[in-house]
């Protein structure tokens, strides 16, 4: 991979981040809605202070947040703080900054995402490969083929179904939350066991909700690859079925899936966020849905922007991994 290509991809990454942050800057400012006014009108209704002070408070907060400066100035200030990953203060939990809120919740989300994404990629691709592999034993294909149907059930709906059948009907697993009500977070084994039990259903929802896509694309890939000459050649050499499957068929069919993986990252992350919201797990998703309920705009925009930057960066990073997997690209 040439230096020129790397530089071009990095420039592309900068463009993506610039576009995303420009959109998140201008859209809220185009709307009629005044976040501060709504927030304090809400507080005034519930807490009770004189509306005369309200205007003063809003004015001083606007100054504090720099909302009284000209738009262009605001735009450059904003871009400058985005560069530092500084998204300002939360309106709802004021002394906390948006970044602090994200930092508290991010480990949960990353943990859930890592485990589920890896597992669904492995399960989905394996099932897809078996479903397409005509030399596979009949019982294996009988197990693998129904996985295609998962395509129609996205993670959130899978979550609702699992909650109903496993949590509600069978009562095997808890119905939501990060740990049982009444327990106090600690490093005891009981608590760790309890919170692990609460993670199982959301994890299963994400694994099986996103496996369908991999099954489908891998099956399509597998159908073309198994007719290739090198696969037939391997068979005529007298290699065993497992060997052909693993080294000649699976490896080659997996390559385009890695590209697909990079493209699917955005959907994977957003699914995880919505699933977290549905299950009430502590994580970026719950912070986001709480912020939506409370009209806590800086938190909404901060989360959106941070995730966009993360996804775009990971996508470009995945492209750099590609030559390591495919020797044909390395030489170019």
């Amino acid at each position: 991979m040439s230096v020129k290509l790397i530089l071009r991809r990095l420039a592309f990454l900068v463009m993506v981040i610039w576009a995303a942050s420009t959109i998140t800057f201008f859209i809220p400012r185009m709307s009629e809605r005044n976040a501060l006014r709504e927030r304090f009108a809400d507080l005034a209704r519930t807490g009770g202070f004189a509306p005369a002070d309200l205007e003063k408070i809003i004015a001083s907060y606007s100054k504090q947040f720099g909302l009284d400066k000209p738009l262009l100035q605001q735009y450059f200030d904003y871009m400058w703080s985005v560069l530092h990953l500084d998204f300002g203060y939360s309106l709802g939990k004021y002394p906390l900054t948006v970044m602090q809120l994200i930092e508290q919740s991010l480990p949960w989300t990353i943990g859930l995402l890592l485990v589920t994404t890896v597992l669904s990629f492995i399960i989905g691709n394996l099932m897809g490969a078996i479903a397409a592999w005509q030399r596979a034993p009949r019982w294996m294909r009988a197990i693998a083929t129904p996985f295609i149907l998962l395509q129609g059930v996205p993670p959130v709906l899978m979550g609702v179904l699992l909650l109903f059948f496993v949590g509600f009907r069978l009562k095997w697993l808890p119905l939501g939350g990060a740990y049982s009500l009444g327990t106090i977070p600690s490093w005891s084994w009981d608590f760790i066991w309890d919170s692990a039990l609460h993670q199982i259903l959301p994890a299963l929802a994400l694994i099986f909700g996103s496996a369908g896509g991999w099954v489908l694309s891998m099956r399509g890939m597998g159908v073309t690859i198994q007719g290739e000459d090198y696969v037939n050649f391997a068979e005529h050499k007298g290699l065993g079925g497992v060997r052909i499957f693993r080294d000649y068929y699976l490896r080659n069919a997996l390559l385009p899936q890695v590209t697909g993986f990079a493209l699917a990252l955005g959907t994977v992350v957003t699914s995880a966020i919505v699933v977290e919201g549905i299950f009430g797990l502590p994580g970026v998703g719950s912070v986001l849905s709480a912020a939506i309920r409370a009209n806590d705009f800086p938190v909404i925009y901060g989360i959106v922007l941070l995730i966009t930057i993360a996804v775009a960066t990971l996508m470009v990073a995945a492209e750099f991994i590609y030559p390591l997997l495919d020797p044909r690209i390395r030489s170019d």
Partner: protein
Amino acid sequence: MELPEVRQPSRPALILRYFRRNKSLGIGVAVIAALVAFTLIGFLLVDPQAAYPLSAPTRKPPSWQHPFGTDFFGRELLAAMVVGMWQTAVIGLLAGGLGTFIGVVLGFISAYFGGWIDAIIKGACQILTPVPVLLIQVVVAGSLDKRDVTILTMAFIVVMLAWMGPTLVIRSQVLTMKERQFVSVAKLSGVGDMGIIFGEILPNLLPFIAAAFVGQVFAAVFASFYLAVLGLGPLREPLLGNIIWAAQSQGAFFNGWWWWPIEPAVAMILILASLALVNMGLDELANPRVRRTE
């Protein structure tokens, strides 16, 4: 010598035969037809007003009187399913149609005229593609006044960042098609730009446009569903995602009101699965290389 008469099967018979060969298209179309029938018959039998809060006794499980049960806010869930299904269809068709239309227009302009126009359109598509669409839609939907969020605004929010896919697909198809011989022949015969676009290229692109349209409807239904599940939908409307959001906010499973979230979930699965099946089937139709023989 008399030739035996060749009987051409009737058109419906041919279509049915094709459905038998292309199973995913057949099943998908059948499920969609069933859903449409459910909605249409539902509108005749139930009062759409019952889909809104305070129109029925609250929290009743499914029974003869309330076939789908009622929810915490006093919606008749059967009516809510009928209206919600209809609203989902409106959002899907409107946003899908608009997205496809913009995609076709931009794709054509980009591929046919080339040069700097092409560079701008292609560049914009490529830069916007890695941005997780749903998150930007969250920003847009969150910036709107809650009272301004209606079924129509939902559709426009969804379409705002959903035209890049069809644009790139149509662009690449037009690029290959404009090098074909029949286009050169038309050009040499003095057919103008518009004549070539509408008379020569567009008809040949119809299968791709149809596939892109179904894909866009799927994406639009999916996106509006996610937005509604996050609580960004028009909260008063019985949109399927809204019902799930409301059920989860009220702890429906904890309280034993299982029918409340499960019904919209099953409806949504049927919609998404049938659209995915039709999409797969159209792929086969548009791409004869994978077409199966009888």
